[in-house]
């Protein structure tokens, strides 16, 4: 024990001064148990472990119908998201938007954009209703998510969502995503000899932020000081 402590101290002393953010020996040396932290009990973990994966791993016990979900939704969700998921004001729209993703006015909703049931279920479970998070019972949670799916014509009016019916739900945009490909599709940006002189014709101003005029008023001096 004392030997390994002195080894770590030696390693720290040998590490070069941190001019560069060199990875020092801390965390890079062989794993060591510092005897810090308590074992997490199954009950403690169960209270906090609320995430749900696309394959349904993590989904809680319980069930909820579209019909029951409608009541909860109208009471707890519609004020922001609209009665039909159309959104009130600038709050997120939950329904419609089908076929808009390739347009210049894409409408990203649960139905048009979310790839998995879990993406919406996990979110509602942890963050909704806004300002009253983690207040829904599991049955209410299943019900309200079932209703949002129904608003998007993903399940019918009679649907009951639960662990057992989880796999029946297929989201329309599941295949709408692909892994970050910037290193291939934007390979041209790796250009360590960019043009320095006479690069193309003279440029013209094609757009003005001041004309659009959506900048908040602030008290920064905007006027130039030159007569």
């Amino acid at each position, binding site marked *: 024990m004392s030997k390994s402590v002195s080894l770590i101290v030696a390693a720290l002393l040998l590490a070069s001064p941190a001019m560069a953010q060199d990875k020092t020996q801390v965390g890079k040396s062989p794993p060591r148990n510092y005897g810090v932290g308590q074992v997490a009990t199954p009950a403690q973990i169960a209270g906090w472990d609320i995430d749900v994966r696309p394959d349904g791993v993590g989904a809680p016990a319980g069930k909820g119908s579209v019909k029951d979900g409608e009541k909860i939704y109208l009471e707890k969700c519609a004020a922001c998201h609209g009665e039909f998921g159309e959104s009130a004001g600038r709050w997120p729209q939950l329904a419609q938007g089908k076929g808009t993703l390739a347009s210049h006015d894409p409408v990203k909703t649960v139905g048009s954009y979310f790839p998995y049931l879990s993406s919406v279920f996990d979110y509602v479970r942890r963050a909704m209703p806004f300002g009253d998070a983690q207040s829904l019972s599991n049955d209410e949670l299943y019900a309200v998510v079932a209703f949002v799916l129904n608003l998007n014509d993903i399940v019918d009016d009679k649907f009951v969502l639960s662990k057992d019916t989880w796999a029946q739900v297929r989201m329309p945009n599941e295949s709408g995503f692909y892994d970050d490909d910037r290193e291939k599709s934007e390979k041209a940006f790796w250009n360590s000899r960019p043009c320095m002189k006479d690069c193309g014709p003279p440029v013209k101003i094609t757009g003005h932020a001041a004309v659009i005029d959506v900048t908040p008023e602030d008290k*920064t001096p905007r006027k130039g000081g030159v007569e």
Partner: protein
Amino acid sequence: MTDSNDDTRTSRRRFLTGAAGLAAAGATGAAHAGNPKNLPPNIAAWSKTLGDGVAVRPYGHPSKFEKNVIRRDVQWLTASRESSVSFTPLHELDGIITPNGLCFERHHSGIAEVDPDDYRLMIHGLVDRPLIFTLDDIKRLPRVNRIYFLECAANTGMEWRGAQLNGCQYTHGMIHTVQYTGVPLKLLLEQAGVKTNGKWLLVEGGDASGLDRSLPLAKALDDCLIAYRQNGEMLRPEQGYPVRLVVPGWQGNMWIKWLRRIEVGDKPWYTREETSKYTDLMENGKARKFTFVMDAKSVITSPSPQVPVKRKGFQVISGLAWSGRGKIKRVDVSLDGGRNWRAARIDGPVLDKCCVRFYAEAEWNGEPWLLQSRAMDETGYTQPSKDALRKIRGVNSIYHNNGIQTWALKANGEVENVEVG
């Protein structure tokens, strides 16, 4: 709802829009000329009287003459201030470090006020020993100090369809750079012992949004930190007090604040924040996912729309450059909208995944300038023009807009955010 930008007093804003506004503007002008009573050969007021003693200001604040140096928001952007963003006043700062009180904020359910005695971090899932750490536990572990930039993936996101917000605080202010003190995440994971089938982590916040993201284990083991200090003092509540995750070079959304739980798994979770949000929608309706890295980017912070030019003659052009892929290698500056470039001078530290400060000096005689800066990192990646980005990505992607910014300097010294072509 209150109107918080500047002075946080609605009445004052209204007051200023009237005739009194002109008087206030006049006063500002007078302040520039100075009060003759304080100028030589007269003796200034502060040279003759006692000021505040020690500990009158037990936690110091900036000078009362710097009240305009504040975070600001754009209220029409979001439905509520609890789920919104405020912007760093980059135009008022120099060097690379952002003062703690000016670091931009992005909350999804407001600022959680966590009692440090009740703070717990849980690590479980595919581990040998699921563990819970107190804040004191975390502070007992070996620690490191690292300076990194944190940029929101949506920084400059309003500019995809053209110049929109007139000020670099609004166009580029979702970034800050501080020195973090914390424990390498690798060391913490080693305490729990990650099983060999562990490939991804779910990292989760303890606020009322419970923000959760999937983080590849390889990144966690490489350079992530569990941080509890920024610039020496404990994290500010709005930055995740008492503990946040640091994910160097990667999008700010993953830097979970008020970190409460890390679960080791074998697959990503596809949470709302990494599907519905923080995916980059392309022109064909398909979206890139897991676009974690923030590409090389730069902006001229002065002159800029909120920092007009006061007089002709010698000018210092100043800006910031950064890359999530490593160190900044070079920054170029153009005065003619990108036709001709000169290398800028980088002054101060050049660190991995950190901002650098650059300067370019030039004479200005009232001719129109189209100011641009262009960053290059050590991988050879060179910041593209906005049009080059649009050619590949279209204009729907919201996130990762690292295109070259143009400021137009007019004959009267005014500076405007413009689009060039």
